[in-house]
């Protein structure tokens, strides 16, 4: 798959502080790319480099195989984490203003704004001032302004903060739809459940360096430890536990069940397959649960960062 965005060996220093050190990422076309990392890791600096707000000291950025240049601004839509609008300006006026700054003509901007305002049922806000709206309402306007010029690349930094669950869902569906229509999305957040739900690729940045990047499924495969959660129904729990302990690497597990069963986490070595384990278990007891433990992105995040410390 072709990459829409490629960052190559980007380095950025502020005085003595290195905000980004030789970071490279590849964002495939049509993907939702999660940019993860603890606070202060350098995510915002990277995003600002992609937006040409800051220039990298070294390294280069390619958008659609072209070296990033000022004309690319209209190909990118950016919803920053620190976002706001002019308080005393009318909603419609400033949406028009911001859309025109992105290169849309006034007429075009008006038509598209009308479409989105109708879609979000906020047409009656047009002549209101931002200070009359709630935070969530203002966020909707910002979202519209970000996507209005139909950019190839959308960058959302914590897009769901400030939204109630219903509106967050509306925004999530819009993001997915934009992806389906061909946009590529970079998504930076600390909410791992939304990463899990939306992203197909991720990159993890810590202390100004990239420490992990790839397809979510590949990364999970890499991080899984060949561990299986099993639930066994047996008369002789203690005896079975001892037998298994001799043969495998066993730890007690904790999951919710209806019956009182023996719950275990069994980690296999390279030479044993899951079928062999299943056969072995089914001879000793009734297997009511058998599933592979796949690490969540949250777990991968915490594990990688702590190991990196």
């Amino acid at each position: 798959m072709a990459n829409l965005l490629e960052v190559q060996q980007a380095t950025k220093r502020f005085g003595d502080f290195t905000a980004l050190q030789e970071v490279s990422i590849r964002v495939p076309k049509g993907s939702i790319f999660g940019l993860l990392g603890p606070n202060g890791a350098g995510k915002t600096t990277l995003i600002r480099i992609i937006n040409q707000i800051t220039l990298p000291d070294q390294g280069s950025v390619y958008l659609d195989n072209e070296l990033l240049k000022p004309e690319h601004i209209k190909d990118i839509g950016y919803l920053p984490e620190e976002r706001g609008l002019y308080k005393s300006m009318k909603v419609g006026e400033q949406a028009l203003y911001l859309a025109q700054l992105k290169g849309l003509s006034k007429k075009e901007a008006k038509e598209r704004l009308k479409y989105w305002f109708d879609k979000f049922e906020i047409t009656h806000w047009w002549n209101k001032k931002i200070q009359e709206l709630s935070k969530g309402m203002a966020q909707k306007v910002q979202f519209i302004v970000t996507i209005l010029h139909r950019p190839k690349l959308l960058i959302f930094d914590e897009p769901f903060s400030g939204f109630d669950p219903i509106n967050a869902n509306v925004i999530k569906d819009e993001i997915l739809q934009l992806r389906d229509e061909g946009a590529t999305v970079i998504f930076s957040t600390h909410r791992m459940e939304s990463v899990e739900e939306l992203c197909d690729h991720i990159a993890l940045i810590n202390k100004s360096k990239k420490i992990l990047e790839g397809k979510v499924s590949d990364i999970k495969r890499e991080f899984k430890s060949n561990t299986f959660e099993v639930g066994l129904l047996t008369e002789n729990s203690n005896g079975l536990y001892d037998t298994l302990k001799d043969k495998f690497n066993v730890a007690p597990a904790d999951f919710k069940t209806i019956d009182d069963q023996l719950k275990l986490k069994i980690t296999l070595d390279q030479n044993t397959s899951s079928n062999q384990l299943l056969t072995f278990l089914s001879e000793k007891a009734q297997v009511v649960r058998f599933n592979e433990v796949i690490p969540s992105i949250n777990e991968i995040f915490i594990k990688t960062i702590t190991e990196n410390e």
Partner: protein
Amino acid sequence: MSNLKLIIKREFIARVRNKTFVVMTFLSPLIFVGMISLITWLATLNNDEVREVALFDETGTFMSDFKDSDNIDYIDYSSLTLNEAKDSVVAKKLYGLLYIPNKGSNRVLAESIQFYAEEAPNISILNDIEEIIASKLTNQNFEEKGLDLNVIENSRAKVSIQIENFSGEKTSKMANYVKMFFGGAAGYFLMMFIIIYGNMVMRSVIEEKSNRIIEIIISSVKPLQLMMGKILGTSFAGILQFAIWVILGAVLLVVATSVFGIEPQPTGVGLEQSMMMQENNQEEIQLLLQDILKLPLGTLVISFLIYFIGGYFLYSSIYAAIGAAVDSETDSQQFMLPIILPLMLGIYVGFFSVIENPHGTVSTVFSMIPLTSPIVMLMRIPFGVPWWEVVISIFLLVGSIIFMIWLAGKIYKVGILMYGKKPSYKELFKWLRY
């Protein structure tokens, strides 16, 4: 439309639509006129007060010379004793007691006259009294020496120098005051403009920063573009306000000239006629208006615009940098010194040095230094400045504007994305290297 135009338009509309702007534009000329009337009224109010001065004259010859005026009534206490007179003055709360003792010679007398008063007396009243006594004593001295007072009076010469430049144009002595007034007013207005509009630029930067809209905008436009758009948009609002004031002023001037009935061109005939006329109020105003019309009004307005725009650009880029560096207006105070100091310096040099000697070294130097030149040069221009001095001054000004915008742009670029840091000058210096 290009982004710079869009930004300028937005800034201009945001400034002009502001209620304070509308109120300031139409109210401040009224306030200005009101203030002048108030001050004039207060001054006359003070003068209306009639002071009573008691006179204790042992010689018995002065009373006839002290004639009651609008401000002072003289009361003869000579029939009392000195102590009684003093007590009476205190009891009646009179302004003071003038004691003229009887000394044989005028020379001794001149040095032994006393004025008793609760508070230190008004200097102009003392001067009046001294003058009356001095003239009386002088006349007495003349008579003692056997000189004829009438002869002396007739031989006294009165000199009034006619001022005329080498191309034969006559001016009145009033002209210098008119020049001072126009120069001073222009310089002072410029300072007010810089402070008011510079602050507007700064507030607008802080607003974008604290609104958090800044990052959305600079993902579409370059920070320098945004800064320039802000400065330009605000300056257009300023120029609009200035234009409205000039038009209002011109209307007032036209109304004034038609009321006092003179042609708006200074003609030699008019001047001669007016000189032949009796000295009265009407004529003074007429002369004054003629002097105003004789000023290089066009040059004055053009140079005001050049220095207004130049000074404004220079200072508002500093204001923009400060706005970017701080999080709120209260934090901006610590950076105000580099703005207020040169402005005050310009005003003081203007009022003390230029008016004294418009072409002296101090005035010339300060009309060249970019931070003070807009104000000082404006004050000098009505007195006539060689064109090459103006050219050098403008050249230096433009050069430093470019440098300052570059410098401010660097600070601005870093500052607008910095939150929660209280920057010091050292920190700002570091930003220049980012």
